[in-house]
């Protein structure tokens, strides 16, 4: 069966490095860190007191005051990024068939900030329930997809996908399959996350998952460095317009690249720890390449999950060596989380955008903050340390893994 081909015709992003795709990309290729002391709440008593926040974000610049108040920060991000992507793709209410456009979005957690504040308010009272009527519709994770459909009048398939930090990659894979199967011509896809709050930071701190390098936030996210001590929390949103190729050609859309496939697997091992040999990571890259009908030798760049945790970085690297064999040494590998932090459920799409930009511009964004080699990692691998590298990138692969043992991988290719 010959599947339909899918191209990317629009992009939008709100990231710790900038609030547009171009600002984000400029930050990436210049090796800028998005980390700084937390401003979103008083973190003075927390073990980790810094994060990669989205900066200078005023929702009322984009949404009317009443609408902005009724949606959680993660939905505000999703709405702004989707506005950018829809506009970038040249989609207007006049030139689309709304029944053929869907929205499939990912988020790891959804409206945690809303949940936290509502429950804190309740706990302050005498037990009388006084919950805000918007509490539930603000908090639920699917609401971002629903809100986007209402804003742009998109009536095709509409839902959200949850697989922790793999969520937006799984969303993109669903988007690919919906278009391949002819269920929609266009899917607005990607994801959003905003959990830099007492509950979010405190919760991840309790798992000892996050870096505690409070004296030097900008060098804290250091994937593949010997002294890495956990991930740095990020937030943000990325939205992509996935479009069936013939549909895009017919309307004369600008094509950024082709999305050639994706894969999803599970570790079936542990709730938070990766499989020590990277089994699920290995399988997911194999599945994705099979889905995309390419060989390992076709891949030029891997944007890794690379969260800067001691175990995760090693397991993924083992998987890459096993899957790619001798070609592993020809690859450029980088973890852009060294700059953006870990945007959790939004990480997959934000990193997919890095891959898309890399195949457009033939530049590999770096893994910054490399100071000391880790003897457990093969020194012959090219982790693109500290400085962006130029090379022809025909195919780029993006890995994301989530608590629960979810692995997802998506592959993009230069359009020709």
């Amino acid at each position, binding site marked *: 069966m010959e599947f339909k081909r899918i191209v990317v015709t629009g992009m939008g992003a709100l990231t710790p490095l900038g609030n547009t795709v171009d600002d984000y990309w400029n930050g990436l290729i210049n090796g800028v860190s998005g980390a700084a002391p937390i401003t979103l709440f008083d973190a003075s008593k927390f073990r980790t007191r810094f994060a990669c926040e989205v900066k200078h974000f005023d929702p009322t610049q984009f949404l009317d005051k009443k*609408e902005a108040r009724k949606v959680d920060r993660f939905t505000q991000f999703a709405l702004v990024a989707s506005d950018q992507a829809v506009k970038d793709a040249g989609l207007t209410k006049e030139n689309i068939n709304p029944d053929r456009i869907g929205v499939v979005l990912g988020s790891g957690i959804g409206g945690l900030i809303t949940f936290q504040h509502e429950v804190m308010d309740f706990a302050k009272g005498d037990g009388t329930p006084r919950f*805000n*009527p918007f509490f539930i519709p603000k908090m639920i994770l699917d609401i971002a997809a629903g809100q986007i459909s209402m804003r742009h009048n998109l009536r095709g398939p509409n839902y959200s996908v949850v697989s922790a930090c793999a969520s937006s990659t799984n969303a993109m894979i669903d988007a690919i399959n919906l278009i391949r199967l002819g269920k929609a011509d266009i899917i607005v896809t990607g994801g959003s996350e905003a959990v830099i709050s007492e509950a979010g930071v405190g919760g991840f701190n309790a798992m000892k998952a996050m870096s505690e390098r409070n004296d030097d936030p900008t060098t804290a996210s250091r994937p593949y460095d010997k002294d890495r001590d956990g991930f740095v929390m990020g937030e943000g949103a990325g939205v992509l317009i996935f479009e069936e190729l013939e549909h895009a050609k017919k309307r004369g859309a600008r094509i950024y690249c082709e999305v050639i496939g994706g894969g999803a697997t599970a570790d079936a091992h542990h709730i938070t720890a990766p499989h020590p040999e990277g089994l699920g990571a290995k399988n997911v890259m194999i599945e994705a390449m099979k889905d995309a009908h390419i060989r390992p030798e076709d891949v030029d760049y891997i944007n890794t999950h690379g969260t800067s945790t001691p175990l995760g970085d090693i397991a993924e690297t083992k998987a890459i060596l096993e899957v790619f064999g001798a070609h592993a040494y020809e690859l450029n590998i980088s973890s852009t989380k060294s700059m953006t932090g870990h945007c959790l459920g939004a990480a997959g799409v934000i990193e997919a955008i890095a891959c898309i930009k890399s195949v457009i511009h033939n530049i590999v964004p770096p893994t910054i903050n490399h100071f000391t080699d880790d003897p457990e990692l093969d020194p012959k691998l090219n982790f693109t340390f500290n400085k962006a590298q130029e090379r022809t990138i025909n195919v780029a692969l993006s890995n994301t893994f989530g608590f629960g043992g979810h692995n997802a991988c998506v592959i993009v290719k230069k359009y020709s």
Partner: protein
Amino acid sequence: MSDIASRVKKIIVDKLGVDEAEVTNEASFTNDLGADSLDTVELIMEFEKEFNISIPDEQAETITTVGQAVSYLEEHAK
């Protein structure tokens, strides 16, 4: 305008995102000020919080205009 009326109108302006000029005594929350069912529930809750009272559901259902809210609260606010 009474103190209660001005506090009620401030809440309505804030929660419904409407202009102060629109918030006349005759204005209906749903028909004139663009409130949906959730907005009206939120308004009642805000009135309860602001005036430190509890408005029973059957009474809340009869408050559909700005003027009705003001007179109810003038009568019941502590």
